[in-house]
């Protein structure tokens, strides 16, 4: 019985990330529109887009291989699994033993690998450009992410997200410089990985600047729906990850709690997402997109911050 209940809770989390992801995207777009003094589409627009794309016919290029058709589902599945592992409203879920930070990075990396391959599959030049830029960004973002993981693991003594969240929510970890550095670096990596504004503009179809959009240019119909949904889930994943690690308040602990604790945790999660989305929109409207050749500097800075955080931890350990 307890087993079934735990499975239900895990299922609820999986459903929650799937259902909330388009809402978060819609919310960010709405806030951005309002900040630009536009009305903006409804907050529910991403759901409508997805429903429409699912109804439409998928058009395939003549020389598309099986990889091109399989990739949207692979990308979606990998991203969804990764998002389901991040503790959103509760730690110690039944699958949380698999929720290793390195596993999550690997899942996202494999999704990106297939997307980059699919971008080159049809053989159009835009797809190739998009893939090569995406891989360049990824090759810089991933080392930075690994350094952040090392910092967190040194503080918490584990790379497992549930444990990290529990330790950081506890009283024995105070304000740490390393954690501050890791937070800044993680935000930079999250911006780069999600293709948000200083790196890439998710709303553009202007050929010279696009990265992610160039890769998925050939997709249509249900394939495009899967990719769009995966992108939304990825954004939700990073916001949840930052919230779970750096603002782990209100999460239901592994030992469980009453019904009130669950409701409070869900409300806290919604509030964190709203704050994260609002800050993202604010940041995006206040900054200009940078040239592609500046991206290595940006991500290099993230890498150095992660490295600095790890270094400081090693040194203060020897105090």
């Amino acid at each position: 019985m307890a087993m079934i209940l735990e499975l239900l809770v895990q299922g609820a989390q999986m459903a929650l990330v799937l259902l909330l992801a388009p809402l978060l995207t819609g919310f960010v777009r709405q806030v951005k529109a309002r900040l630009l003094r536009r009305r903006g589409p409804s907050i529910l627009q991403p759901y409508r887009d997805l429903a429409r794309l699912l109804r439409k016919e998928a058009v395939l290029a003549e020389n598309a291989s099986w990889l091109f058709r399989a990739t949207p589902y692979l990308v979606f599945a990998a991203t969804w699994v990764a998002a389901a592992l991040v503790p959103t409203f509760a730690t110690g879920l039944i699958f949380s033993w698999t929720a290793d930070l390195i596993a999550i990075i690997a899942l996202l990396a494999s999704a990106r690998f297939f997307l980059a391959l699919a971008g080159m599959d049809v053989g159009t030049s835009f797809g190739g450009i998009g893939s090569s830029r995406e891989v360049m960004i990824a090759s810089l973002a991933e080392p930075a992410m690994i350094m952040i993981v090392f910092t967190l693991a040194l503080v918490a003594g584990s790379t497992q997200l549930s444990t990290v969240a529990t330790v950081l929510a506890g009283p024995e970890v105070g304000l740490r410089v390393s954690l501050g550095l890791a937070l800044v670096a993680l935000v930079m990596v999250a911006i780069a990985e999600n293709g948000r504004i200083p790196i890439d503009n998710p709303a553009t179809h202007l050929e010279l600047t696009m990265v992610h959009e160039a890769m998925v240019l050939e997709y249509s119909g249900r394939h495009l729906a899967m990719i769009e949904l995966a992108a939304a889930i990825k954004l939700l994943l990073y916001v949840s990850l930052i919230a779970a690690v750096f603002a782990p308040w209100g999460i239901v602990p592994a030992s469980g709690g009453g019904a009130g604790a669950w409701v409070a945790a869900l409300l806290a999660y919604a509030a964190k997402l709203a704050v994260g989305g609002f800050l993202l929109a604010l940041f995006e409207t206040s900054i200009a997109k940078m040239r592609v050749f500046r991206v290595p500097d940006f991500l290099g800075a993230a890498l150095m911050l992660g490295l600095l955080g790890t270094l400081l931890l090693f040194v203060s350990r020897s105090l």
Partner: protein
Amino acid sequence: MDRLVFDVAHMLAGGLVLVSFVMLYQDRLTALLKVYALHALVLTASVAWQAFVQDAPHLYITAAIALAFKAVVIPVALLRIIRRLGIHREIETVVGIGPTMLAGMALVALSMVVMLRVTPDADPLAREDLAFALAVVLLGMLTMVTRRNAVGQVVGFMALENGLVLAATGAKGMPLVVEISVAFSILIAFIVIGIFLFRIRERFDTVDVQALDRFRGDRR
């Protein structure tokens, strides 16, 4: 309580190091000056916290000096200078940002290793502060070295001085007289440098210090 005191001081000092890195990352003069104002603000917070922790009211004066001069007067004055010199759009780093940041990392590591080795039996609060202060000083020097423009070098020099103040407040019992004289000597240095900027500009039509190389004696 003790834990919190240490954590906040640690956080503020670390924040100062972080802002020093932000300063290294900037390649435009206006952005550099704004970051310098932020640097001074973090320093003010750090000094005020030390004043509160050490129960030393004279440190509040230091904090007030930092806030008034370094966070407001000097950045505003320098901003006006670069507007008048018409160089507020210039990009002016000597080497790329990547190598500079790497060198900065190495300097932080160096200062940590040196400071923690030589002060094994000091108060942990002071030790950490000293290590961070040395890092800020070295990063300030690095900022000076990697700027071609005289204004950028002035900002690096000011950042270096912020590191000195951080070191001074971390150690207990720094007399106020010393503090004030340091603060004013910096202010005077700033004025002198400001005048020099205009003189250099008048004579060479630029504030790029590479133009001075031609006038060195050993290179006939």
